[in-house]
């Protein structure tokens, strides 16, 4: 595929000294972080700063009959104890709905519970003290009288008439329902040689960021302005919502977000305790710090997945898939999360099931119900792991039913690489995908036939290994179609400003944010490449609403594709401006000049004409020597938002090779492969790291991670000993390969890569486990695949 651009040489001439696009250059922020000079909110100290601890409900559902904080208030060092009612004087409640998710409903949520708590972990009072330890001491002696209410915990019975309605004003516990019926599903099933059905169950899990959610809010009464230091993925969204609910204008709120110790979608939402922290600062007129501890992270960071999805697939004897059908159910906690809502994951499941395949016959229903557990919302690869596990699980079951190799059935049904542009049955538009090229590359990388032979040989020795394949599609570069059209003040465009400094260095301000993905690096790589400036001379500033252009931030695999394009376009303008000045100084024309290796050179022979620093010196200090009328403009700003496609879809395929100990139910991951297509690779090493990190989170979901609730709505494993995150000892080598189909919507051609790893990893593992267990006739469609689950399926316990 050829990408037509107005300035193609910028992207193609990789042998130029400052061509960084496509190269694995080290991240510019590495030294700073490695030397412990990162700027994390959890390390911040401000004068007169108070530390807030939230007293949290031990009950999943209870009426608050009374709060007695007198003793706590008299503890030395305690600044204030604030209840929900008191805090409501400075902050208004919110409702997490979006208008394009038709029928989605939720109830007003307060920063601190008023009158009633709806999940174990909801804050009932804030204790502010001179230190976290003192605040914890005081929290222990706040007396709350609870009258326990019946908790709604099982999503399967949440809609039963006998089940209490959590928010009576809503009428029932159904937050959202979506139905889709495309093609001729009934006729397709009727015309199938086999129809296979399975109930897929996904455990609730969460992101477990290394640095917990952290906020320092600093209300400056003199300036009538609030500064929020927060580890967030979307500073301008925080600014907008903090202002809205505190009765301020956006100009009265500054959000600063420097280094962030991991986000994964956990930090793209606005949490009640964060809102409370802003409000406390305004109420108490001093800086207030909130850092979630690990237990409250488990109890309050959004959870995700937790779906039960009944899936059906129709297949003909020749391997042609005739139809998909799903009936999906998910429980999201007592409130739809703010502002992105808790219906997006279910909506994505409906959108994405069957996505890689040709069949147009697809019926889906999803229901999103309220329950008395922690809130659920978007976490890395929203909806994708569920859609992929259901789709790929069904495809493998269909293949087994008709006795066809899992790779062969995929090859017969994946959308052809020359069929684009096209659309899915749910209406998703695909610009250009590469399922078959990716599958071919995967087969070579893993040596599929040899692996099958090895598997067969080991079987005879009682060693049970499995191969699992999972093709997937991934939503990246979202336009306003994601949130903006639903009324959310979440920007889908991003802006970048670049300027040449007086010594020929470049300052670049971008609205995307960095939480470890490499946003700083890719921005500097693009700007350096376009400007002909070495990367160490490019300084990237991000994460400050006072000092960056307005934009969305980093989430939904959008930073490189959208923010990167803005950087490219801004740098092109600056380059043009620099060359115009250079032409004036050198009595040449800008067409005859170029910039390379920090100098103006002849476009023809590359001969150096003038250092950039010399040009900058003249512009800033001796403009009197420029020809009459020349007004140099050495700063340029550009914004970008995708306009042609609502989303830039990417695709890929993963494979897992593992061994199941059928005596113990333990799974050993032996190897994992990913081939993905995110278009232009800006920094291949960063892409590979993103993929591997994403795979590891997917493997965590497949084998380990689950927020275990009991029937009373108590989270029983809210600590790092009992909640099992994937660790290096259990991780296999992960090989990553690429197919490159750039998007033509941008000059850069980059799509997102942040979530592809997570999208398909669990599906590959589940398929591999079932492949290993095939001689035993056991099929497991539930994750995490624990030893207990496997032994039970094998009938061993």
């Amino acid at each position, binding site marked *: 595929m050829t990408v037509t651009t107005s300035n193609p040489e910028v992207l193609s001439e990789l042998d130029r000294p400052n061509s960084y696009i496509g190269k694995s250059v080290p991240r510019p922020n590495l030294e700073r972080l490695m030397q412990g000079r990162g700027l994390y909110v959890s390390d911040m100290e401000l004068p007169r700063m108070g530390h807030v601890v939230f007293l949290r409900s031990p009950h999943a559902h209870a009426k608050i009959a009374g709060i007695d904080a007198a003793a706590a208030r008299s503890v030395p060092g305690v600044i204030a104890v604030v209840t929900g009612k008191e805090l409501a004087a400075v902050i208004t409640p919110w409702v997490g709905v979006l208008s394009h998710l038709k029928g989605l409903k939720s109830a007003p949520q307060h920063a601190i519970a008023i009158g009633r708590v709806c999940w174990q972990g909801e804050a009932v009072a804030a204790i502010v003290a001179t*230190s*976290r*330890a003192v605040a*914890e*001491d005081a929290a*222990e002696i706040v007396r709350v009288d609870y009258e326990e209410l019946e908790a709604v915990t099982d999503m399967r019975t949440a809609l039963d008439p006998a089940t209490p309605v959590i928010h009576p004003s809503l009428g029932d516990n159904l937050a959202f329902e979506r139905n889709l019926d495309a093609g001729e599903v009934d006729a397709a099933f009727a015309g199938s040689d086999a129809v296979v059905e399975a109930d897929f169950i996904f455990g609730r899990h969460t992101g477990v960021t290394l640095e917990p959610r952290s906020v320092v809010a600093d209300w400056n009464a003199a300036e009538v302005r609030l500064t929020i230091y927060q580890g967030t993925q979307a500073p301008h969204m925080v600014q907008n919502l903090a202002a809205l609910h505190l009765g301020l204008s956006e100009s009265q709120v500054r959000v600063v977000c420097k280094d962030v110790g991991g986000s994964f979608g956990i930090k793209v939402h606005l949490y009640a305790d964060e809102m409370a922290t802003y409000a406390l600062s305004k109420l108490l007129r001093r800086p207030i710090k909130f850092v979630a*501890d*690990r*237990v409250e992270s488990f109890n309050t960071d959004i959870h995700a997945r937790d779906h039960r999805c009944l899936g059906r697939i129709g297949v003909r004897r020749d391997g042609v898939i005739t139809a998909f059908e799903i009936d999906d159910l998910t429980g999201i906690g007592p409130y739809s999360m703010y502002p992105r809502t808790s219906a997006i994951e279910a909506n994505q499941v409906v959108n994405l099931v069957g996505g890689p395949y040709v069949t147009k016959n697809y019926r889906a229903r999803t229901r999103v119900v309220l329950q008395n557990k922690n809130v659920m919302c978007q976490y890395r690869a929203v909806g994708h792991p569920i859609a992929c596990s259901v789709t790929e699980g069904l495809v493998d079951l269909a293949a087994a039913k008709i006795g066809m190799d899992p790779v062969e059935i995929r090859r017969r049904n994946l959308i052809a690489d020359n069929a684009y542009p096209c659309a899915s049955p749910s209406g998703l538009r695909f610009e250009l995908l590469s399922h078959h090229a990716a599958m071919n590359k995967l087969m070579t990388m893993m040596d599929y036939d040899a692996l099958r032979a090895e598997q067969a040989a080991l079987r005879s020795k009682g060693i049970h290994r499995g191969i699992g394949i999972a093709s997937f599609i991934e939503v990246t570069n979202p336009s306003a179609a994601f949130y903006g059209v639903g009324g959310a003040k979440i920007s889908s465009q991003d802006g970048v400003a670049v300027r040449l400094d007086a010594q020929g260095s470049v300052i670049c301000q971008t609205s995307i944010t960095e939480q470890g993905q490499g946003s700083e690096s890719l921005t500097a790589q693009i700007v350096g490449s376009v400007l002909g400036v070495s990367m160490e001379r490019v300084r990237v500033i991000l994460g400050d609403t006072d000092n960056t252009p307005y934009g969305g931030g980093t989430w939904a695999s959008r930073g490189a594709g959208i923010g990167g394009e803005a950087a490219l376009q801004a740098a092109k303008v600056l380059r043009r401006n620099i060359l115009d000045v250079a032409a004036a100084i050198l009595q040449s024309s800008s067409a005859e000049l170029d910039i390379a290796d920090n100098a103006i050179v002849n476009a023809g022979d590359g001969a150096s004409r003038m250092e950039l620093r010399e040009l900058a010196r003249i512009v800033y200090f001796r403009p009197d020597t420029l020809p009459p009328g020349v007004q140099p403009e050495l700063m340029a700003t550009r914004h970008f938002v995708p306009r042609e496609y609502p989303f830039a879809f990417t695709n890929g395929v993963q494979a897992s090779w593992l061994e199941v100990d*059928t*005596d*113990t*139910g*333990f799974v050993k991951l032996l190897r994992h492969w990913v081939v993905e297509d995110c278009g232009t690779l800006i920094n291949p090493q960063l892409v590979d790291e993103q993929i591997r990190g994403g795979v590891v989170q997917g493997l965590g979901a497949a084998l*380990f991670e689950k927020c*275990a609730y009991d029937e009373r709505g108590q989270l*029983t*494993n809210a*600590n790092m*000993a*009992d909640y*099992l995150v*994937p*660790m290096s*000892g*259990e991780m296999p080598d992960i090989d990553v390969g690429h197919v490159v189909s750039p998007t033509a919507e941008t000059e850069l051609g980059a799509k997102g890569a942040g979530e592809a790893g997570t999208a398909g990893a669990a599906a590959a593992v589940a398929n591999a486990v079932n492949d290993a267990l095939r001689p035993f006739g056991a099929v497991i469609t539930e994750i995490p695949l*624990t*030893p*207990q689950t496997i*032994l039970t399926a094998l009938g*061993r*316990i």
Partner: protein
Amino acid sequence: MKAAAFAYARATSVMNALELLGAHGDRAKVLSGGQSLMPAMNLRLISPELIIDIGELAELRGIAVSGSIIRIGALTRHVDLLKSPDIAAHAPLLTEAIAHVAHPAIRNRGTIGGSLAHADPASELPACMVALNATIIVRGQGGERRVAAEDFFKGIYETDLSAQELLISVELPVAGKNSRHFFHEFARRHGDYAIAGLAAQAIVEKDAFTDLRLVFFAVGDRPVLARAATNLVNVTITPPVLATASAALGEDLDPQDDQQASASMRRHLAKVLLARGASALLGRPDLNAGGRA
């Protein structure tokens, strides 16, 4: 997640520590490696009034071999056990087991005395002590007591140690001629608490066990010395013999249910360990029929 306020005393001698323990009893906690104590305090699961830090008591640290006895001071860290040539030569079961204790950062701080006094039923070292026939030496202001490891562990986090006593050291017999060992545990991730584990010490002569100590852990409220082992001593081990022992083991155990495993799964895994252990100790792959035995 901050500990409640507590008083702190750094013991200057064992006698000083015992005086402090005598005065404060169960209101005080002894700080050794702190790998279980500090998290419990930070989670406010316990709030001792006084912490008695014994970290400076050099006399409690170290490994010494004299004659047929290995003496390990209570403050000896896991990492030191792991790297000790004396332990590798004379109690190789321990060397192997230590590698399963948590992670390097924890092994660098955690101590054998702390682990034994804490008596987590899922931890490795108490089981090893029972398998190795260790003697645990405790001292109070009234003097020293020697307790067989088998009698030391009383229940979940419960030992024979009184609130006024300090665990001083352990003594192990040097592994003799023809002795063999086996250690394995099933844990969800390397370094996690075991779901089921086996520490075994045996003497094998002419392809038969003449002595066999099978100690299962994480399948009861303390390390379980399996009586089923007697079925396997001084007999020719055949699959039916092993099956009898396995059935006896299943009846002996009374494991608990928790998030990681049900009681029946733990019982099943213990049987798998029995088969794998017997097979490995005798070098008889044919015996490893897993839980099918």
